[in-house]
Structure formats: C-alpha cells, structure tokens
C-alpha cells in the first residue's frame, strides 16, 4: 500500500487530496487535520526528516480560493521517500499548529514563515521575527507588500557619531 493510500485510510474523513507532478508526490490536507497527520507520518510511517516549511500567498493567484498555502516537505530517511504536504489558512488570523514537537528543524523554518507571511504557529516555543528587525511591522513576502517596501529602509533610524 502506498503512503498516500495509508494516509487516506487512516484519515478517511479529512478529505485528503493526493496528486503527483513530475516526481513530487503531494497531499493536500485541511488545516484541522494537519497536526494528527504529521504526527502519524512521523510516528508510524517513519518520516523522520522535515526538510522544509514554506508558505505561499495566493492573493493574486488566478483561481485560488484560499489566501495562504503552507508547505511541508517530509522525507523518510530509511526509504528515501519524499512527500509534500500542503495546507491552507486564511485571514484574518492565520494560525497553524507548530510542528516543533515532532521535528526540531521546524523551529527556525516556522519563525521565517511567521516573519515573512505573518502566519502564526501555536505551540512554537519562541515565535519571534528572525530575518527582519523586531520593530518591523509588515510581512514582506505577502503579495500586498510592495517590492520596494513602504519606506522602512528610508526611515531607518541613523545614529551619528555625535549622538552615540
């Protein structure tokens, strides 16, 4: 039985959508089933390696119904099997359960998604901005954030030698 079939039979009510594109095998899971699915994959199916967490803002994407897609790439290091798990969250309060309790690599990856998209991860031990300064107020990789920024760089406080 393939991993997708196992997941389908384990979570029959979740309505998982499995597909394949090139060599990427993908499973789309509703946000409420994400945590049990990831825990099942880590615990029972041996997907012990979380390679990647990232997000996509579908604000300007043609035909998209949800605002944010969050992507997890998990690998079974014994068999080399790789699966892309995807879920969707929406405004006004995009929150997902943190995967930190399963994979420690989720720590900084989730912090980056929070920093860039404003998607919160409940249960994350230290959800702070990581790449932008703490006082930064926007989420730069959202599609409604302009490429040139909103003047943050222009108005950045400058300390001169005289007043330091």
């Amino acid at each position, binding site marked *: 039985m393939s991993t997708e079939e196992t997941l389908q039979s384990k979570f029959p009510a979740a309505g998982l959508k499995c597909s394949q594109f090139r060599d990427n095998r993908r499973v789309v899971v509703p946000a409420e089933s994400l945590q049990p699915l990831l825990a099942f994959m880590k615990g029972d199916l041996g997907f012990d*390696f979380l390679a990647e967490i990232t997000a996509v803002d579908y604000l300007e994407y043609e035909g998209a119904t949800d605002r944010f897609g969050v992507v997890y*790439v998990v690998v079974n290091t014994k068999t080399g099997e790789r699966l892309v798990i995807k879920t969707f969250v929406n405004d006004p309060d995009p929150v997902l359960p943190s995967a930190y309790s399963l*994979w420690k690599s989720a720590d900084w990856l989730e912090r980056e998604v929070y920093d*860039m998209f404003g998607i919160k991860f409940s249960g994350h031990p230290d959800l702070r901005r990581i790449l932008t300064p703490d006082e930064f107020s926007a989420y730069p990789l959202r599609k409604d954030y302009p490429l040139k920024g909103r003047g943050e760089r222009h108005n950045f406080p400058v300390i001169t030698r005289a007043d330091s």
Partner: protein
Amino acid sequence: MPFDVSDLAELDAPEQEYLWTLNFGPQHPATHTTLRLILTLDGEKVVNAVPHIGYLHSGFEKLGEHLDFNQYVTIVDRMNYISPLHNEISWHHAVEKLLGIELTPRCKYLRTILAELMRIQDHLLNTGTCALDLGGFTAFLYFFQQRELIYDIVETASGQRFHTSYTRVGGVAFDVNNAWVDKVRSFIKGFAAVHAEVHRLLTRNRIFIERVQGIGYLSAEDCINMGVTGPLARASGVLRDLRKDEPYLAYADLDFKVIASKGGDCYARYLVRMQEMVESVKIIEQCIENIPEGPVNVDAGSKAVIPAKPSVYRSIEGLIQHFEVMMPNRGFPTPKEEIYAATESPNGELGYYIVGDGSPRSYRARTRPPSYVHFAVFPQIIKNHQLSDVVAVLGSLNIIAAELDR
C-alpha cells in the same frame, strides 16, 4: 543596528551573578560574514548562545517573484557566494523540472563537472578557513591557490570568475571548448599533490586535532531531527546524499562513494570534507573524459530557451524567439503548478520551491538554504564548550551569511 538593551532582556536572566554576556559579531574576523551571537559565559565556558541573524537580509525571494527564470540566476549565485555556480545549477534544475525540460547529455555532464568543481571550491575554502581560524595559516594559502585555479576554469567557461550567471533555462550561456577541457585536466593533475600536502599539514597535526576533536558533537538522531544535511550529517553517520538518493544531472551514470564518518565532531566534518574532495575529483575525471558531443542547449523549438547568438543575428526565427524570451510582456506559457526540487549542494540539501502561475516568472521562489537550517543547530552544540571553540564550531558548520539571510 545598534545594540539594544531589550535584546538582553529576552535572554534567560543569568541566575548567577558571575555569568557575563559577550556580544560576538556581527563584524568579527572569525564570523567571516555578518553573523551575530550573544553568548552567556561562565568564565570561558559558553552557557548559552543566542544567534541573531538577518543582517544581510536583502529580500532575494521577493526579487525572485519579479524577475524571470533567467534573470533570477544573477540573484541566486549571490546566495552562497562560496560556490555560486552550484546555486545556479540548482535553481535551473528546479525551473527545468517545473517546465518539464530534459537537458541534453552534454549539458548534463558539463553541469556535473561544474557542480563538482564548486563542491571542491566550497570545501577548499571551508577546510582552509577552519584551519585559519584556529591558527593554521599555511593550509589556507595552499587551498586558496587551488581555488584560484577553479576561478580560472570558471572564467574560461563563462567569462566571469565569481558571480558567473552561467546557466540558462535548458542549458548554459556558452558551450565550452577544448582549451577549457585541458584546463580542467591540468587542475585535476595538480590538485592531488596539494591535497596530500594539506593532509600532511593538518590531519595528524596535534595542535589542530586538539582544537577540533570532540568539539561540537552532533548525533545522527539529532541531525535527522534538526534537518541537518550534507557533509555535517554525513560526518555524524547519516548516509544521505541526494546525488545517490535522488540522482539528477549525470550522477546516475557515475561511480563515486558517499563519504561518511561516525565521529560527529568538528574533526569528523573536516575529514569528510577532505575526502569528499577526492571523490569529486574522481567524478570530474569520469565526466571530462566522457563528455558527450552534440548541442549543449536543448532544441530551440522549446519556447523557453534563449536561441544561440548566430541564429539571432542571422535568421528571423531566431530573432523572434529571442524577442519572445527576452521581452517582459511576451514570454512562454508555464504550467500552473508547484514543485520542490533539491540538489546536494556542497553545504547540504539546497532546495527550491517554485510556484508557476503561467507566466515566465515564478509566483513564489522559495530557497531552502542549508546554512539556515544548520545555524539553528549552533546553540545546542556549542553549549558547555570553551569560548575559543565557538570559532572552531562556526568554521565547521560552514555558515554563509548571504545564504542564511537571503
């Protein structure tokens, strides 16, 4: 950014008064780039380390949404500038997977040679500076001279020493000639002697060993759980190498070993990197003697490919094709799909997650940088080491700040 008192408040308040705080970086010779660590010390023992990153954040991923697949290659090679060509190969590997382009055999071999040269280049700098930070200047100079030869090879192929922007969708900018092949051959010939010399300088050098052995230990379980890949994971005994596990380019045809060690410390990482260079040389040897003839770029019938310059200047079809690819309001249809594609970069798994929306630009161009994931491990493995070990561990992790912050 000025040092802010509020930064300190978020650290665990030192329970004992004798703990003191040291700000390491962002401008420190041993960080090589702009990294900043806030270390809590008990005497010289590191009790806690909090990395502060983002000093080089330049919004590369946002730029990737505004540049087309060929233009963005000028940005990706600025991420890991120690092995720039590998980033380009990795980026276009992902793009070609999205577009469904199968490379020509010659291009596959050419890119494999370049990727392995980049691996050597990266490991040369890393092992060299690792020794340099610990006081061994000679090895660094020997290795840097070899890097210089690789720059020459890359310059002969692309016209640029460093930020080459050499790959294109479906191929490379220019084909290589016999002079280039000879350069690679003569590099391989000379490399073994220098490699052996540095081996003699460092591998059994007692001063070096005492600085790196048993330092920065990382277990295999932690490596997998914390997302560590590449030479770091292999030095801890994790047998993962995407060149073997998910072969791309020409790696399936080639005979090479995956180097691993059980040590898990800085010394094991040094040994793994040293031995990987030997394997890379073997790969290059096999490729350079068997590099297939034929076109280097895929057929220009594919709408995504920039045509060769003679055809642009001398035929109307070539000119039209060039125009279609280059003009921002034209372009070629791309699938409305998403793809994650990863390659084994010198540092570990370098992945790209690309969302295509039908235009020749990516809707989202995410990089999975190995440095970023590896630096998250740092606070854990530096605990209870001496302050002077910070430099040794940083060197062995091979953190490239431009890739870390993007």
